[in-house]
């Protein structure tokens, strides 16, 4: 099975080579045929957050393989230069300088955490190199400069949506659990304000550290407040663990989780405890749109697993930057101009979209899903 899929990829790459060779003959298309185009990727490929980096790499490698199988960009193959930063600013800053100084690199993707990404932003900005944030939901990220773009919905938008969904579908007495991080804290404030202004009541508001493994104390405290809905402003690991331990302390209620909990790992870690969790997601593999279905099928064939949102975001990011390269030319400035002027940028997650004044996706729609029988399905 695996052997077969590798063979297929190889065949496609060979075909791609033929196409680009053919393109080289056609005058006008023949700029630097064969000389690769490079994007840099700065991300957590080792350390505490290596699990996210591993999924990024899968999604990105697949996008590159697809692009190259179809003849690359203007006949030139695309290559990614991965640099491990452990999502540590001490390392992402020199990596930023490395990419900025490398004339071959015409765009950069990542980093993962706010600290690692935003400490590197000034260097990308001064180097006039696009820093494309896949996961940077902090609105301050794209305010860091004219070269910061992001396809991640901001935490404000996400949190407001969470409040609306909770009130509409789940309950009015909420116990809110949030990470004590920039993302968790901002989201919590937006959620609480919106939830209260629309008639909801926050009966428990508990924070925790990302490194915490034990939540029994805050969970038993919340249990005594008798909530009817649990709201998790969490990543998938801590979200699943919170629900597992909630079961242990006897805390019950309907559950709403932030979109970052949408991962197979959430199901795997949480077991039965995550059943019934509702979340609103950008990417869902059962989404009937043909582009999504094709992506899911190819991903399964390549890696023998169903892609999660991080894989989809990573795949999409490479595709979007490649579109910019195609449109604006294979230069740092070309990609930026293409992004600014593009009014219908094709993408997997947003259909066709444009970047707004904050260099984020102007409009997007999400799917409401839930966990039933140990898998994600549409919520009805």
């Amino acid at each position, binding site marked *: 099975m695996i052997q077969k899929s590798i063979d297929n990829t190889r065949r496609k790459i060979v075909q791609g080579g033929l196409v680009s060779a053919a393109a080289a003959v056609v005058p006008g298309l023949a700029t630097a045929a064969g000389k690769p185009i490079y994007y840099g990727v700065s991300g957590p490929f080792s350390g505490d957050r290596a699990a996210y980096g591993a999924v990024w790499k899968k999604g990105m490698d697949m996008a590159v393989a697809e692009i190259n199988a179809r003849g690359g960009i203007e006949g030139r193959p695309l290559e990614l230069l991965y640099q491990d930063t452990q999502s540590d600013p001490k390392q992402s*800053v020199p990596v930023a*300088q*490395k990419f900025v100084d490398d004339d071959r690199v015409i765009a950069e993707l990542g980093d993962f955490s706010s600290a690692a990404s935003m*400490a590197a*932003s000034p260097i990308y900005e001064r180097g006039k190199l696009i820093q494309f944030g896949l996961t940077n939901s902090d609105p301050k990220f794209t305010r860091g400069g004219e070269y910061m773009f992001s396809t991640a919905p901001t935490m404000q938008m996400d949190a407001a949506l969470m409040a609306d969904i909770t009130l509409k579908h789940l309950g009015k007495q909420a116990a809110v659990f949030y990470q004590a991080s920039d993302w968790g804290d901002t989201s919590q404030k937006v959620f609480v304000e919106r939830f209260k202004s629309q008639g909801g009541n926050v009966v428990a508001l508990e924070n925790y550290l990302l490194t915490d493994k034990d939540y029994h104390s805050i969970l038993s405290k919340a249990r005594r407040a008798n909530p009817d809905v649990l709201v998790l402003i969490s990543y998938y690991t801590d979200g699943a663990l919170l629900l597992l*331990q909630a079961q242990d302390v*006897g805390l019950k209620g309907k559950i709403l989780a932030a979109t970052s909990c949408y991962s197979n790992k959430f199901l795997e870690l949480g077991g039965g405890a995550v059943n019934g969790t509702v979340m609103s997601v950008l990417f869902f593999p059962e989404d009937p749109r043909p582009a999504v279905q094709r992506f899911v099928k190819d991903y399964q064939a390549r890696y023998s697993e169903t892609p999660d949102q991080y894989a989809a975001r990573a795949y999409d990011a490479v595709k979007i930057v490649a579109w910019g390269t195609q449109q604006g030319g294979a230069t740092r400035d070309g990609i930026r101009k293409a992004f600014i002027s593009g009014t219908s940028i094709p993408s997997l997650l947003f259909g066709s979209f444009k970047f707004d004044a904050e260099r984020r996706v102007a409009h997007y729609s999400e799917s409401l899903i839930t966990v039933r029988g140990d898998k994600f399905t549409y919520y009805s």
Partner: protein
Amino acid sequence: MPEFLDPLVTGLINGNAYALIALGLSLIFGVADLVNFAHGSVFAFGAMLGWYFAAVLHWPLPAALAGVVVATALLGVVIERVAVRPLAKAPRIAPLLSTVAVALILDRVSQLLFTPDTQVFPNLLPNANFQLGDIRFGAADLMMLAVTLVSLLALWLFLMRTRLGRALRATAQDRDAALQMGVNAGGLEALAFAISSALAGIGGVLVGMYYRNVDPSMGFAAGIEGFAAATLGGLGNLPGAVVGGLLLGVIESFGVTWFGGASRGMIAFGVLVGVLWLRPGGLFGSSNASFAEPLTGTFFGRGRPVTLHRWQLVAIFVAAFVVLPLAANAYLMRVATIVVIFAILGVSLTLVAGTAGLMSIGQAGFFAIGAYASALLVKNHGWSFWMAMPAAGVLAALAAAILIVPVLRLRGHYVAIVTLGIGAIVVAAILNLPAITAGPLGITAIPPPQLFGIDIVSPRAYYVLAALLLVASVVLVVRLQRSHLGRAWRAIREDEVAAQASGVQLAGHKSLAFALGAFIAGVAGSLLAHQYGYINPEIFGVDISVLALTMIVLGGMSNVVGTILGAIVLVGAPELLRPLGDFRILTYGVLLLLLIRFRPQGLWIYR
């Protein structure tokens, strides 16, 4: 009532885990006179192995537990043989650093073996939930309690009733005397490592069952908690370690219930610092524990000192200020800048830990105060960088002078743990004071320094700025070391009682060393903040304090040139090892281990 009982039960169960870790740390401390920084990693490795046996190989609980005990005990023996015993005659700080390297290696190996993912620990016990009134507890909770008690009892019987146990106690009490009585101290040390590591392994499995999950990087935090628990009870005191663990668990649990999860570090370490302030030997430690031999003193200066000639100094200057900026590309300049900033942090510690012999693992706290003060003054109050940077240093120094009061009566390992606590408290305070520091949000868009209206942003310019400040701090530290003050500090390091008898005022001199060190650390923090342009509390964790200490130990403790070399190796090497990919951090750990093995007195010796 439940609002009181719930946290109590949770705390006691969590405290069990701390107790098991603390027990092992205390035993090793007693026998080998060493704080084993790899202990947390052994705990995490045991947890991962337990998961592998139970979830992948489907072994039943007793088999999985036995497998983990055997494997971690062996691991303990290997650690003792490879990283500790060869350093028996080295300065006492060397094996400590060597265990830091082992921790790095073990965590990374565990990630490569088991993947970095968090794994669900299978439910190995019937999912019975008992309810007593309004308190709930599961089978795993009872199991945990039972295993801790049985382990403690078995250890107690072993120590009290067997010849080997008596030999262990004798070695812990007086190693030289035990040797003369024909006790094989080396073999006993291996035994202590085996027992402790097995306890940590058991702890790992139990915690996995209780938290329902394990991951390869859970060791560091657990090790720190265990260290805190052991110190709370009195290092080397085994019943003390158990009580310390339970107490820490309960206090944390109440703290989290009342003040929220983000306050965990502040509460745990606040209590620890408070207790040691009142009782310098811990709750159950003998009070003269605080007069134990200094960690760095007596054994100083082994090996041949290296002296720098004037022409060599000139050559270094030319290399740093002419050759490097001209030859290096911007990426290398950026790496060099970060190396220089961390070198300044290391130099700040040279004075405290090297010259005055106060083993501090809290320097990141003053680094953070400097960074935040400078960032906020420039960004929100319109100060110029040139005013804000020294102000940041002064604020860090003031904070140090106040915070360091509990340390003044302590010596050796107790200084280490309390300063570790102070560093953690500073970061927790930044996290929990959003009105001033923006809390977890961090501070964005910190303006770069300006000179004559021009931003200093190019990698070269910033490097030169940082390097000049490094030179300034080196000159300051060297002049202080050579002054009358420096002699007084060295006297304190070598023999506190003698120093005091000769009229050296201990508290004042120690405070001054900390304050001056914090001033330099604050300046380094300011440089970091304006280089990154964005700071948040995550950047100033305990790992940074440990890094600073590692730098100076590697450099030979009190020598600034060695410290700079240490910074080049420790901060620069991970960048230079980049081509190794997955094996980068592993190689870094192995290199560190080898460096300590063959150069235990540090890279640079100096009187």
